[in-house]
């Protein structure tokens, strides 16, 4: 769980890198210090050797040939077979003992001379070279061994104890400093990670709350400039769309229930009141007729709802075939002419041929719906004009009336399901409030569009545009 948290992973990487970097630096610094220290000791050893050498080998006796020809040096007096000591005690105490250096000289014959502070059991390396200088670290001593061409070997050494102690001190200090840097760095890193991730936490907390139910809430987008601000904005717009969709869904469900309640209450009330006592056959008949009307209304509503649902889910397939839109319009006009005559409404057609591909039955449904709306919402003695024509590769059908028109507040919403310009059901005409929504679905399934223009007091015009490119998909 903790490993999956971005904060912890960031912190782990940050800490790991910090430790690598700091320890690398510290180790480098320590190594450099150690080398420098050793270098200093070595240089001092060389200096001491330079001081000592004139006493072991005569000055100027550098060449091989010369050395061979020359007699053994007499500057150093070898006091016995295995021992020799410098001639001047002053030199020894000044240059060696007081400074913590020591020397041992050993001649080829095995005679030795040494400073008083020299350890006794120092092994001389058996080196093959006849001459040259070798450096070695023995325990906590640093020693320089020089072979003089005559065969005498001189060893100059000093204790490294002080230097080592100082280096240990340094190592300890570096460790403390390093740990300090790592701890501080991690803390700063943690702070930064927390700070950087806090908006993410806020966003996710807000999102959780919103997802849990309250879709009207929004994420605070005060930092709109940053990437997270953009994320929050995107999330907010998603939530807004979700909220709208939910509200529409709820509205739709509530509207559908509402539409069903009235016919159901007709059936319940009619049957309950009829059954309270004996009725005449005529009364029973009236009750049955009322129930039938209510049931038919529910049937129409359910069919419309299912039809819309099929369009919504893309299950409704259009049976496309070549047909003439003008003929379809003409059929619809003939179908509705009796209704129009009843309300003394005249229908004028300007139907020029419109051969196209499409589902003639479905499009006929659209025309019938538009026409019956035009009749039902028109005043008595009104007029309706229906026309079909071509407009740049598009079949255009218009249905206009000179009825009362639709007010601007209702106009954008009349294609919505169950939306009615007048709040009441006009149940007698058996309309469900879904006609225009279904028409829109049919037209859009053909790749076309439907829109309305209306002016209060003058009338409304519905225009359906169907693209010529309405070809069978297969």
């Amino acid at each position: 769980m903790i490993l999956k948290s971005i904060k912890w992973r960031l912190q782990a990487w940050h800490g790991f890198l910090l430790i690598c970097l700091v320890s690398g630096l510290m180790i480098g610094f320590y190594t450099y210090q150690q080398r420098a220290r050793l270098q200093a000791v070595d240089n001092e050893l060389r200096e001491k050797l330079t001081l000592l050498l004139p006493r072991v080998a005569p000055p100027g006796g550098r060449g091989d040939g010369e050395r061979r020809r020359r007699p053994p040096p007499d500057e150093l007096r070898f006091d016995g077979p295995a021992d020799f000591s410098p001639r001047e005690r002053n030199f020894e105490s000044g240059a060696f003992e007081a400074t913590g250096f020591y020397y041992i000289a050993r001649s080829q014959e095995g005679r030795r001379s040494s400073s008083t502070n020299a350890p006794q059991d120092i092994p001389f390396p058996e080196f093959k070279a006849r001459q040259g200088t070798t450096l070695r670290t023995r325990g906590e001593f640093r020693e320089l061994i020089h072979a003089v061409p005559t065969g005498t070997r001189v060893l100059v050494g000093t204790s490294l104890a002080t230097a080592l102690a100082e280096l240990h001190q340094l190592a300890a200090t570096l460790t403390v400093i390093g740990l300090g840097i790592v701890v501080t760095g991690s803390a700063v890193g943690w702070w930064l990670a927390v700070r950087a991730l806090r908006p993410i936490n806020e966003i996710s907390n807000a999102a959780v709350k919103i997802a849990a139910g309250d879709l009207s809430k929004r994420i605070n987008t005060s930092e709109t400039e940053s990437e997270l601000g953009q994320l929050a904005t995107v999330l907010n717009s998603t939530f807004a769309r979700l909220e709208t969709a939910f509200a529409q869904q709820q509205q739709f469900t509530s509207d559908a229930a509402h539409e069903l309640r009235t016919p159901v209450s007709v059936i319940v009330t009619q049957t309950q009141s009829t059954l309270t006592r004996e009725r005449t056959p005529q009364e029973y008949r009236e009750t049955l007729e009322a129930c039938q009307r209510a049931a038919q209304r529910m049937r129409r509503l359910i069919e419309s709802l299912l039809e819309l649902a099929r369009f919504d889910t893309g299950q409704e397939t259009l049976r496309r075939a070549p047909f003439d839109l003008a003929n379809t319009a003409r059929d619809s006009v003939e179908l509705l002419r009796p209704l129009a005559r009843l309300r003394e409404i005249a229908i004028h057609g300007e139907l020029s041929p419109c051969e196209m591909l499409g589902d003639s039955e479905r499009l006929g449904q659209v025309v019938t719906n538009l026409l019956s709306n035009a009749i039902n919402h028109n005043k008595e003695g009104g007029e309706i004009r229906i026309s079909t024509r071509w407009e740049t590769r598009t079949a255009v059908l218009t249905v206009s009336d000179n009825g009362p028109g639709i007010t601007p507040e209702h106009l954008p919403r009349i294609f919505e399901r169950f939306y009615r310009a007048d709040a009441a059901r006009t149940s007698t005409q058996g309309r469900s409030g879904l006609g225009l929504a279904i028409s829109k679905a049919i037209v859009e399934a053909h790749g076309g569009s439907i829109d309305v223009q209306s002016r209060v007091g003058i009338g409304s015009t519905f225009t359906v545009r169907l693209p010529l490119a309405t070809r069978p998909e297969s």
Partner: protein
Amino acid sequence: MRILIVEDEPDLLKALTRALRDEDYAVDTATNGADGLFNAESTDYDAIILDVMMPQMNGWEMLERLRKKKKTPVLMLTARDQSRDRVKGLDTGADDYVVKPFDLPELLARLRALIRRTSGQTSSDLEIGKLKLDLRARKVSLDGDPVDLTAREYRLLEYLALHRGEVVSRTDLYEHLFDENDTTLSNLLEVHISNLRKKLGGDFITTRRGHGYSIE
């Protein structure tokens, strides 16, 4: 009791009217808010059953305009059951609220309760001396013996009993006992009163000459 039903769905209106007339109510009807408001303002109904969704003037609007003039008890009928609609209905001045589709016996019970409450009566049994009225079953008994009354006689007695102690004018009685479809002659009221006196004994209903009738 005279009831006004305002409902735009004709089949529902017809069924409700029949159900109420079966219960011996006098019933007037209107199919839109404007007509309903006109009726409600011009007549003193004992209760109004009002549908919310109607053409021209909806139930809310009609109720709001009615409340400026009258306190007639109103029972709202609506197809919306969201609580904010119910709250709106009650706040606007509706006295009760029934959601469609409703149960007819329940609607009738609510209507009875509404009328009873308006006259300050909380129980559905009414006792006046030896006389006992069962408002729910519309039965009357005297000293424990059932009295056989016609529907009109019962409604007349009930109305006077619910307005006990008041003098009820003849106009009032006509308004509350007969609906627009009744073509009753004025002397019929006297006939009902005299029949009631015969059945219950002469001293229950007193005549205040020039004013009307009352039950003390």
